[in-house]
């Protein structure tokens, strides 16, 4: 009996220390990985990487931001509307369940599959060449589920008093949704949109066959119909993450590896900036709603 106790105690001590080692080492590993990418990126930095031409990543950086912006312009209204439908308008029936299954399916689709779908529908069927708009649409498909679920959760988490109060004052359902509930949910929805943006920055596989792997911008050309105009959404636009993929096999550029290191660091900082701000915003909202309760 005594030996059994001792064994249990010893086992406990061993396993606790094993879990400690795993927990701490995972944390350290993650920090080292992240630190390595950022530090390596900045060690290999050269001022010419910032230029907006073949030697720098300025154009790719601009394309990344512009593409994510375009995709959010498309996916935010649609995602919010789908979320509102799920939370407010749909009844608990087959349609509701079907939409839920679809949202789940969309959110777990491999991004290469979305990329293929995008290249078929937005490139082949429109008889166009690779362009930013097709890339933005493909990324929108990937973002849509995240924004829809965030919106739905935000609406569901809102205290019933908001809705009841507004309805009691004689507002219609839509007036209540649009003027009372949506503004109250907006901060949460924005958190979701920021997260979606963060994911969009890193997307690569969906853009291989949609946004294309080349970019050619003339910063003096501001005629929006021109293929060289930075703001023309119907020009090929290679993003930072795709550029890293292209650089791997590019032998023409002697500094390919340094540029890729630096691109990685920029990308990771961009993504961390967005996810940290989403987190802080969420934290602040939790605190605020905790205080009013």
């Amino acid at each position, binding site marked *: 009996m005594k030996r059994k106790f001792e064994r249990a105690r010893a086992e406990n001590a061993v396993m606790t220390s094993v879990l400690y080692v795993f927990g701490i080492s995972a944390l350290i590993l993650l920090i080292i990985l992240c630190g390595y990418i950022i530090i390596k990126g900045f060690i290999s930095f050269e001022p010419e990487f910032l230029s907006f031409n073949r030697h720098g990543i300025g154009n790719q950086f601009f394309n990344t931001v512009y593409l994510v912006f375009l995709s959010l312009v498309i996916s935010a209204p649609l995602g919010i509307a789908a979320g509102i439908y799920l939370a407010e308008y749909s009844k608990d029936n087959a349609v509701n369940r079907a939409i839920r299954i679809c949202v789940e399916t969309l959110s*777990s689709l491999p*991004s*290469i599959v979305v990329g293929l779908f995008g290249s078929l*529908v937005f490139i082949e069927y429109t008889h166009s060449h690779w362009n930013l708009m097709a890339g933005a649409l493909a990324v929108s498909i990937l973002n849509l589920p995240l924004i829809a679920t965030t919106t739905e959760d935000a609406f569901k988490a809102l205290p019933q008093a908001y809705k009841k109060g507004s309805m009691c004052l004689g507002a*219609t359902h839509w*007036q209540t949704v649009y003027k009372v509930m949506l503004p109250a949910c907006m901060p949460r929805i924005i958190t979701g949109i920021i997260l979606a943006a963060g*994911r969009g920055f890193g997307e690569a596989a969906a853009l291989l066959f949609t946004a294309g792997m080349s970019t050619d911008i003339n910063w003096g050309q501001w005629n929006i119909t021109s293929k060289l105009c930075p703001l023309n959404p119907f020009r090929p636009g290679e993003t930072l993450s795709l550029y890293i993929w292209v650089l791997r096999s590019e032998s023409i550029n002697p500094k390919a590896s340094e540029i890729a290191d630096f691109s*990685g660091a920029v990308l990771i900082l961009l993504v961390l900036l967005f996810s940290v701000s989403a987190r802080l915003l969420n934290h602040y909202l939790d605190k605020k709603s905790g205080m009013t309760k």
Partner: protein
Amino acid sequence: MKDKTKFNSAANNSQGGFLNEGLWKIIITAIGIAVIGLTLAIAVFLAVKGSATFYKFHHSVFEFLFSSDWNPQDTEAGGGNVGALIFICGSLITCFLALALVTPFSLSVALFMTEISPRLGKRLIQPAVEMFVGIPSIIYGWVGYTVLCKWIKTVFPDKAPTGMSVLAGSIVLAVMIFPTITTVAADAIRSVPSEYRKAAYALGSTRWQVLSSVVIPSAKQGLLTGIILGLSRAFGETLAVAFVIGRVRAFPTSILSPTYNMTAIIAGEMGDTMNGGEKNSALWTMALLLFIISMFFIIVIHRIGKGKKNEKKI
């Protein structure tokens, strides 16, 4: 008089309100239903494009799944072979090896941050892990390519001359799915009622006994869900694996030899194919297979969730 106009305008307004009401209800409903349309469109396009291999080029499903003879012609005439077994095997081996590598790690970190040091977990580990969910996979690929492959090359210079191998692919995937599994597992462990733990402690169990025979069994379904979510993410991952898998069309002889996988060949070869050709169709079939696999994982997760509900009823 003045009051009357006021009343009229109010009436007009409220009429406008009701008009808007109907209009917006239609718009919102239409968008909600469009989500179903979009998903169906993706499924239908995949099914149509993917099945062309079978009805247009007369290959059998059996050949596609179980033959390793991959030589599709890039023409409308076809006549090549479309055996995708190498790619399917490559995907299966890397994904399951990644899962085997990362599961013990993920579960112990999840246990550590919820049960052993909840304060450290909440303040430091949880935010760090969640942040890593968002790191672009291309960066994992790049680091795997520049660091991990070099490292494997120096350690095993004879067996892995380039460093690109199944092992490298699995490690990259393992690091990638680590945050997914850990977050879901931690949520599952947290949702185990604290009475369970208290009761077990009151009976004189040590902490490890509580964890291993009470907490883990009751969080089993959640842990399984996390593992499957991680697996489904690993299956769909494309460029990170394409960086390090070596992209050699052969079965791996050991974990140090290079191979190919489904996503990497789509990414690598789709761009050069002719729309409607045999090769193009074969690659679409591969995408269809990926879609079916991801649907399969969703169904499995739902089954697990249902099992949990039934258990609660009892």
